[in-house]
């Protein structure tokens, strides 16, 4: 125990150095030789370790074929590559595939692979690897979700030659190229896949600019440069291996600590920067921000039209007119999120918007409720019909909604109450939240969905997505059941004519928004903050994941 001071005065003074004695004690406690990373940079262009701090969940498996969620997509983009990519204008561009052609009936697609690309294990990229990849994703054992659904129309892949892979489809798929651009469908080595799920999860073998070196669970994934790399996408800024020597991919779940680490220079890049952090960072002016909204659906509230009270379109419209989200978005997101009036993300070229449908108008809302028969009001100010209160269940997934968004939902609750809606918000963990959805125990819900291209509308609003599978799973949470909409979405998904496709999707979106089952809020947020020393980093235009192939550290 500590030395006893000799006088009362030194004792009093010794309170100050308490921290020092604590540090001394810690020295005794700490095992020597922790891996003190040298601070990144020094070289202006080549070399250095970039430290990336992710606030997303740590993946269970580094192979995005297995499961297939956003945290996997974030990191997989560093070591896996797709057949095609998407450029800034939303055009499909070559990546591992240099060329592709479709048969006239749209049921067969030939992809020609780039010459002389090698996987990080040294084996050449061939059509057999493409075949193995698709089979891997379609194998129920991998539990692939997003990737599996995206390949719904693909019946098989055949290696026509070493460099030509032929996809055969059960029906024409206008979303095929968009689907293949996603990290969940990235090409892996057949030999890597053959090692089995467990081993492949630890270090998938791809063609990317970096290679998984080590995965310390609950802490970090170490990525090192692929020295033989030669397959950048068509819109990359340079060729040959990456500038960075390594990436230290850390998992920092607390958003305040993540920003503190960036401020302290302990990390170079953070993701999931929260609205308050973005505002602070903008004030500080010492960081670069990449604002890369996710593609697919916008963040939106879906109204369950499959049961009362929202099976009545008047009540749905009344709700949408009653709630005021604009003020909430402005106040809670510090100007970092822009109001959306579309079911699709603002990065989707075919997104259709109609602001007039979503005007905040309390009088109109009340008139609509009167018309729908909710004419009485109880002592608490809520509307009543046939003795029943106008109550809405709103389960909120605390794993998926950031605090600002949860506060916004409270604003929705408060403004809906003015028209006489009682909204009961239940904050739930992910599994309980799924439970509430699958037991049809919700009236309002917010569920993120990321998929490249407007075909996401078919997944979310086609009536086929209402029928719960044996598991209870369904994606059409608005429970929209509109045969005409179904026809539009199916036609659009099969149409290989760009103009026709655009027209069909516009019409489909008009119907969706006009049904008042959807209240668009804003794009799915994807904000990255970078230290000023980080140059050349970008978000790739498929699902807006960061790409460090062109990046370098200037200090």
């Amino acid at each position, binding site marked *: *125990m500590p030395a006893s001071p000799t006088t009362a005065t030194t004792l009093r003074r010794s309170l100050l150095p308490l921290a020092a004695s604590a540090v001394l004690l810690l020295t005794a406690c700490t095992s020597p030789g922790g891996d003190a990373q040298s601070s990144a940079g020094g070289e202006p262009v080549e070399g250095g370790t970039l430290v990336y701090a992710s606030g997303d*969940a740590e993946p269970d498996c580094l192979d995005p074929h297995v499961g297939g969620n956003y945290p996997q997509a974030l990191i997989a983009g560093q070591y896996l590559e797709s057949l095609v990519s998407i450029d800034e204008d939303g055009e499909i561009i070559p990546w591992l595939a240099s060329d592709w052609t479709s048969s006239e009936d749209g049921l067969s697609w030939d992809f020609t692979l780039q010459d002389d690309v090698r996987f990080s294990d040294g084996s050449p990229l061939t059509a057999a690897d493409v075949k193995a990849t698709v089979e891997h994703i379609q194998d129920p054992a991998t539990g692939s979700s997003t990737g599996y659904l995206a390949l719904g129309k693909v019946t098989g892949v055949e290696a026509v030659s070493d460099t030509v892979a032929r996809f055969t489809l059960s029906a024409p798929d206008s979303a095929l190229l968009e689907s293949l651009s996603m990290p969940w469908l990235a090409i892996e080595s057949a030999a890597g896949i053959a090692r089995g799920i467990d081993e492949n999860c630890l270090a998938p073998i791809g063609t990317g600019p970096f290679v998984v070196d080590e995965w310390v669970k*609950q802490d970090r994934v170490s990525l090192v440069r692929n020295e033989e790399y030669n397959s950048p996408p068509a819109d990359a800024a340079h060729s040959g291996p990456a500038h960075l020597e390594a990436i230290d991919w850390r998992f920092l779940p607390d958003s305040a600590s993540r920003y503190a*680490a960036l401020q302290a220079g302990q990390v170079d890049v953070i993701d999931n920067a929260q609205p308050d952090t973005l505002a602070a960072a903008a004030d500080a002016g010492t960081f670069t921000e990449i604002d890369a909204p996710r593609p697919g659906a916008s963040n939106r509230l879906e109204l369950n039209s499959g049961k009362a009270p929202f099976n009545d379109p008047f009540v749905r419209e009344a709700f949408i007119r009653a709630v005021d989200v604009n003020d909430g978005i402005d106040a809670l997101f510090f100007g970092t999120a822009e109001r959306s009036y579309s079911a699709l993300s603002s990065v989707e070229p075919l997104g259709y918007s109609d602001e007039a449908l979503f005007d905040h108008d309390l009088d109109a809302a009340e008139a609509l409720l009167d018309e729908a028969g909710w004419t009485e009001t109880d002592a608490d100010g809520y509307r009543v019909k046939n003795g029943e209160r106008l109550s809405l269940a709103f389960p909120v997934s605390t794993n998926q909604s950031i605090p600002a968004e949860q506060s916004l939902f409270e604003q929705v609750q408060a403004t809906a109450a003015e028209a006489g809606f009682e909204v009961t918000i239940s904050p739930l963990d992910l599994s309980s939240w799924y439970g509430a959805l699958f037991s049809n125990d919700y009236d309002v819900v917010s569920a993120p969905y990321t998929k490249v291209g407007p075909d996401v509308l078919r997944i979310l609003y086609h009536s086929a997505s209402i029928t719960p599978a044996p598991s209870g799973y369904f994606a059409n949470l608005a429970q929209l059941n509109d045969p005409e909409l179904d026809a539009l979405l199916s036609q659009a998904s099969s149409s290989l004519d760009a103009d026709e496709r655009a027209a069909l999707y516009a019409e489909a979106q008009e119907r969706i928004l006009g049904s008042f089952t959807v209240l668009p809020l804003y794009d799915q947020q994807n904000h990255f903050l970078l230290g000023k020393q980080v140059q050349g980093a970008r978000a790739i235009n498929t699902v807006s994941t960061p790409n460090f192939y062109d990046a370098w550290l200037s200090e």
Partner: protein
Amino acid sequence: MTPGSANRVLLRLAGAVFVLWAVATLTFFAMRLIPGDPALAILGGPGSQASPEALEQARREHGLDQPLLVQYAAMLGRLLSGDLGSSYALKVPVADLLAAQLPGTLLLAVCSLLVAWVIAIALALFSTGAGRIAASVGHGIELAGAALPHFWLATVLIAVFSTSLGWLPPVSSGDLSGLVLPVLTLAIPLAGFLAAIMRESMLDALAQPYVLSARARGESELGIRARHAIRHAAIPGVALSGWALGSLLSGAVIVETIFARPGLGRTLVQAVTVRDVPVVTGVVLVVALVYVLMTLASDAASAIVDPRQRAQASPQEVGA
């Protein structure tokens, strides 16, 4: 060993086994009775949608299609044979996972306990017998310290020592400097608590006859407190240290998350989020086991520090 003490040991062991069984059972049912299907959470991370086939597969693989009691019996059977099962999400044996995460958390907890003791002793020495003002200041510090929530304290420490002063890293990187803030976060509230208890019994001790006689021999006030009274004052603190270590393991849940330290706490958070029942059960069992072992150890330590307790506990041995 006398028959009496053998009985006591057996009773203690039976108690420990009962505690572990109860903890495993409660955890199992608590995790299962919340609505929601673990298979969904396993496959359906944020933003992804699992196919029905994959869900069926996952259920079969983990025996989730069996009746609840069958699953419970299977879990108990596995536990009895020393098998903690395999993580739903990470697909590795739970024992391996815990073995990898335990050292980091134990290091954090033990260091925090030691630092808490240092602070508590200093506080107790400072605030007793040095006048009324010192006493009330000391008492105030103790109360405030004991009441500080970990997440708040962590945020303040990061803001002061990392963001403003730039002395210490806000997140752990495996070296010494990264350990300081997490340890202080856990140690400060505990120190307040320990110091409050120690000061009470220190005041008691200072009123004892042996202190009077020491004073009569001309020993300095500080010497008396540091040599005689502190020993007396430490007894309740030692007795509580077992409990304290357990509570530090619970505190690690927040601290490991904020400071991004690998460890049991973070493992638990992630496992609960995805409803990874075997991992949650495993972590909770380990924490319970540490509680049980530490309580036993601190009983023994108290007996060493305080001879009277030995005397009361086993009169036959003393008499023999």
